[in-house]
């Protein structure tokens, strides 16, 4: 967990501290005057349903963030995560509709997203494409292709509705106040926690993970040690596709439909995933926590809208999470990114 705190400790600690302070202040105020505005606000913040919503909203972001971590740690900056989420959200519904099985749809989505990531990898690693622009292209292609497909197949930018993943409820535990939400959630939420664990272990404990980090920090060192840098980077980028695919599918199956006009239902989650892992300092656990911060604010925001706590118009309330990210970033400042991130590596170059 300390990994989360190095890099820009001052900033991160500051943010964490401020968050904690605000929380405590709210709590105290709530005890003093449970019926006051703050009191009720606190009630909202610590309600199980807020936690549940936070988890739901976190799922696609966390998956994409973990994928992004692998790609970038290996030296390939993948800002196409948004596109990977979009393509997998659509193919998930299409697949489920075609096969009649959610989990097959899930598989289809993962395959599609991994394939798109593969294209990205070939373009970047084989043809030394500019990673940022290629990533942008991945986003734009998906942004066009998914609604295009939906139009062709369903006659509109929105697909038909399929089933949703529903929720898995752990008896007893789910009745615990607040934390009960952790045990009464969609399978996607459990998958998310699994992914965080697997991601962390792979990155920090396995040979592959070590090679990934070396490929991003000093590819030449890895190369001269006799490991094929391109292979490692291919694997890492494909992984980013796989994880993002799970994220996109989970997103689509949370409401059982893909909606494709404007920025589509993904609506910037892929970019927020980048914020998440930068703020999380490339640590899957860190990414999970920073996502929770963002998603939590979003959940609170959605709840505030329905209460009569304050006079603010909904449009302005909806800005809270975005403004929060900006403020957080202003405190955290820059993150140390892998030395060779973004740079093409050609074996045998002096």
């Amino acid at each position, binding site marked *: 967990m300390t990994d989360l705190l190095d890099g820009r400790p001052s900033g991160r600690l500051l943010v964490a501290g401020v968050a904690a302070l605000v929380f405590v202040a709210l709590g105290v105020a709530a005890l003093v005057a449970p019926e006051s505005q703050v009191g009720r606000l606190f009630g909202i913040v610590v*309600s199980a*349903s807020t936690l*549940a*919503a936070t988890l*739901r*909203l976190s799922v696609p972001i966390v998956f994409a963030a973990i994928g992004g971590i692998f790609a970038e740690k290996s030296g390939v900056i993948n800002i196409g995560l948004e596109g990977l989420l979009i393509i997998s959200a659509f193919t998930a519904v299409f697949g489920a509709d075609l096969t009649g099985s959610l989990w097959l749809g899930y598989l289809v989505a993962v395959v599609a997203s991994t394939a798109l990531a593969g294209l990205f990898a070939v373009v970047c690693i084989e043809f030394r494409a500019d990673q940022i622009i290629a990533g942008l292209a991945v986003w734009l292609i998906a942004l066009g292709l998914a609604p295009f497909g*939906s*139009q062709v197949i*369903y*006659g*509109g*930018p*929105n*697909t*038909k*509705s399929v*089933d*949703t993943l*529903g*929720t898995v409820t752990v008896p007893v535990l789910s009745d615990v106040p607040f934390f009960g939400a952790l045990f009464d959630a969609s399978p996607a939420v459990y998958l998310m926690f699994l992914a965080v664990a697997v991601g962390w272990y792979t990155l920090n404990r396995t040979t592959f993970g070590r090679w990934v980090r070396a490929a991003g920090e000093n590819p030449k060192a890895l190369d001269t040690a006799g490991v094929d840098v391109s292979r490692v980077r291919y694997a890492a980028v494909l992984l980013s596709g796989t994880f993002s695919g799970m994220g996109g599918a989970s*997103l689509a199956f*949370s*409401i*059982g*439909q893909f*909606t494709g*006009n*404007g920025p589509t*239902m993904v*609506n910037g989650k892929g970019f927020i995933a980048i914020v998440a892992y930068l703020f999380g300092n490339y640590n899957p656990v860190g990414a999970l926590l920073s996502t929770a911060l963002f998603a939590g604010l979003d*959940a609170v925001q*959605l*709840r505030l*809208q*329905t*209460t009569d706590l304050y006079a603010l*118009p*909904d*449009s302005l309330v*909806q800005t809270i999470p975005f403004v929060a990210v900006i403020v957080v970033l202003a405190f955290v400042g820059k993150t140390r990114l892998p030395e060779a991130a973004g740079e093409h590596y050609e074996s045998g170059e002096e």
Partner: protein
Amino acid sequence: IGGGGGSDAAARVGMVYATGGLGDGSFNDQAQTGIVRAEEDLSIAYDESQPESTSDFGTLQQQYAQSSDPDYDLVCCIGFLQADALTENASQYSDQQFMIVDSVVDASNVGSYVFAEHEGSFLVGLMAGRLTTTSFSAGAGSTAGDSTNVGFVGGVESDLIKKFEAGFTAGVKYASDDVDVQTAYVGGFNKPAAGQEAAISMYDSGADIVYHAAGNTGTGVFQAAQEAGRFAIGVDRDQSVTKSSYSDVILASMVKRVDNAVYSSVEDVVNDEFQGGSVTTLGLEQNGVEAVFGQDLGGDVPQEVKDEMSTARDDIIAGEISVPTDPNQVS
């Protein structure tokens, strides 16, 4: 996107839908059923376009108006956002017949169709107000009985959607003064995820029936209803049919017969009776709006509630109940 039909068609119609596109299971799809019905009954031909942004409206309207091959006898503009563009184009293309839904464009070649959504919303509001105070269960949902609040989820905060909210709230208050309405505007007609979160938080804070006027955003509301084991009320079409996977939580739908507006305008064109400059208001009286009970749950709604709704309907038509169009006017 093109429709088809031959050149022997009785008339040719161009459809410009609202942004949000087909497949929203409500507004646009409802308009489409109207034109499809017209194609079958009146053997007309039509083409349709789905704009991606408001600045496309003008262009697409113009394209139909300019086109000489084929020549369009009528251009249907679905949605109030098209009003401004149409006001301009109507005068520019004075020999082209247009119709617009949900807004009034004052031009001799435009037929305007507006709906009294507040009237229909009043009836479903009344139903919601009654059922939330009695303990009632059907299909996958049930009401707490002691609960005293219901919810409304709007798409984009605008005068039109506020008419739904106003009517609904008025209906609820009419049923019982001490039932509150939680409202939320998620800021889009195609944001099911946001709709879902908004509805869930309403259910969590005691609401057991949520009414939406939010196009495809409503899908999320139904989803939330199913997860919470509560009820929802659909809009624009009988959504217990169009979104049948949710028919076990959809008590009723405030159907808005956009299809009728489209159909009758086309019919008028075919019979050379098209009234440019006319404003047709479709309320309960004209069956332009109506409260349609869900195909699965409709049967379970207590008869006395149904009766009360139909009396209210008559009173509204008779003008004995006046339904506000602005939430702030709800007493």
